[in-house]
């Protein structure tokens, strides 16, 4: 059991535990904070896979932007300081059954997937930002998805502004 395995087990355990806490704590704000812990755990897993660029981007986006947006959204929709909602609705037994079944099916599919039981060899040069940049710009590489991504981002921006400002105008 070398150090990388110990760290992996720790990081995975923390990630899973906080993911569980996200869905089971009572106050929404606490759920948002546990989500931040989960996302940081995933970033540590990226580092263990030798994908330093993606670990840093994960923290930058998910923790630095999306988690803050989620906290803003939680604040916007509820009186968050004094809030206790019921944790389970009536269909929880069926939900539990469906998720357990899904997990079993996925485990069976992955086990029969070729190469899934081999130990992955992480390639240190594969997560390189320079290689990624060349792939983005190369016309025979990912240049078109690169441009489409920008159009998608602008579409998301325009859509949200339209909806949000319409609502603000409606309230006034």
């Amino acid at each position, binding site marked *: 059991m070398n150090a990388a395995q110990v760290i992996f087990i720790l990081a995975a355990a923390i990630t899973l535990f906080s993911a569980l806490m996200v869905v089971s704590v009572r106050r929404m704000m606490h759920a948002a904070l546990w989500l931040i812990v989960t996302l940081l755990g995933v970033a540590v897993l990226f580092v263990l896979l030798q994908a330093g660029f993606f670990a840093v981007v994960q923290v930058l986006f998910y923790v630095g932007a999306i988690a*803050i947006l989620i906290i803003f959204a939680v604040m916007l929709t509820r009186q968050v300081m004094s809030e206790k909602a019921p944790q389970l609705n009536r269909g929880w037994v069926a939900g539990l059954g469906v998720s357990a079944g899904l997990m079993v099916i996925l485990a069976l599919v992955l086990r029969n997937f070729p190469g899934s039981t081999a130990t992955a060899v992480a390639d240190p040069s594969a997560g390189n930002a320079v290689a990624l940049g060349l792939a983005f710009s190369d016309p025979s590489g990912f240049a078109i998805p690169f441009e489409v991504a920008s159009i998608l981002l602008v579409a998301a921006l325009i859509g949200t502004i339209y909806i949000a400002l319409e609502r603000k105008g409606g309230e006034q």
Partner: protein
Amino acid sequence: MDFWTDPYLFLVNWLQELLVGWGVPAATSAFLLMLTGAFILAMGAMLFVLGLIWFERKIAGRFQDRFGPNRIGPWGIIQPLADMLKIFTKEHITPDGVDLVPYNLGPVLSVAAVLAVWAVLPFTLSLVGADLDVSVLYVVAIGGLGEIAVVLSGWGSNNKYALLAAFRSVAQLLSYEVPLVIALLVPVMLSGSLSLNDIVRGQTLPYVILAPVAAFVFFLTSIAEVGRSPFDLTEAESELVAGFNIEYSGLKFGMFYVADFLHAFTISLLFAVLFLGGWQGPYAVQYPMLGLLWFFLKAGVVYFIGVWMRVSFPRFRIDQMMAISWKLLTPLAIAAVILTALIAKLIPTDGILRTGSLLAANLLLAGCAMLALILNRKKKILKEFPLSAASGFSVKDVTGKTQRSAQ
């Protein structure tokens, strides 16, 4: 190698050999050395803040035509230490109804987020904590953790003013992160790597000459990210009382204070790394410890300019701050990136033509931006005083310059 040319490398190798000689396996000895180095760096940074506080108080005092602290120790140099001892022994007053984990984690995470940047800074040719290949993005990501610390403190205080102030502060941090990250693209482009170490080594000519607009945008946005004057709205006494750290007393408040000063110096170090050439200077390659001296001198100059700005300008209103970030700095940064990308690719060989055209394009861009600002101001004045054009007064009358008689 010799002790005198590079004491740091000599010391590290000597310690490594010592530990291996005692029978410690090589991996563990490397780990122990990393642990020791990290501890010394973190302690050193925190103790360095005492010097920064003294420097700022003295300089601010001189700008305001008074002595700074001068009673305790020669030139008041022991004053911050005395303050630190005092704040260490204050009572921790925890208000009712606080959420203990976020409340206590806030100040700790605030300091940790700033300290973590010191791990990737290249201090000399050989002295780098962690030579990450994505250091630039790491620095930005750690800033995101700092924002989370603000939210934790504001929310954990169980005080609606603290919460409001925390959200305002986060809105300011988010708005200024956009031009910051865009301006960071320019040194990355010019050096071809995301690693701070490579950026320093790639600066045969400091990037502040090749990309002054990007340097200006980076400097201004970093000052706003730290929350210093003139961007310190969330700490203003008459607004939201002291901001998100209302309910903190004693050393927890002291930690926010430490984080503030340390962050201000850290951005000065970053500016020196990205735009002023880092540890480069005369004889920095032969005697790496001199590189440390040049690095801290450059950062000290930038820090001095930050203190100068702090004592000279009145603070911005929140809507002015947002307007500056989104409507001035973001388009300016984007234009700087586009110009640098085009020119540096059209003239790919390093030389006086490339430097000259980059500099000229940047100055042209700065000129256009200032023209836009002046025209915008004239438009605003005309909107506020619509009769001034009709009755024959010139716009300059309103601003108090030339006089022309009414008709």
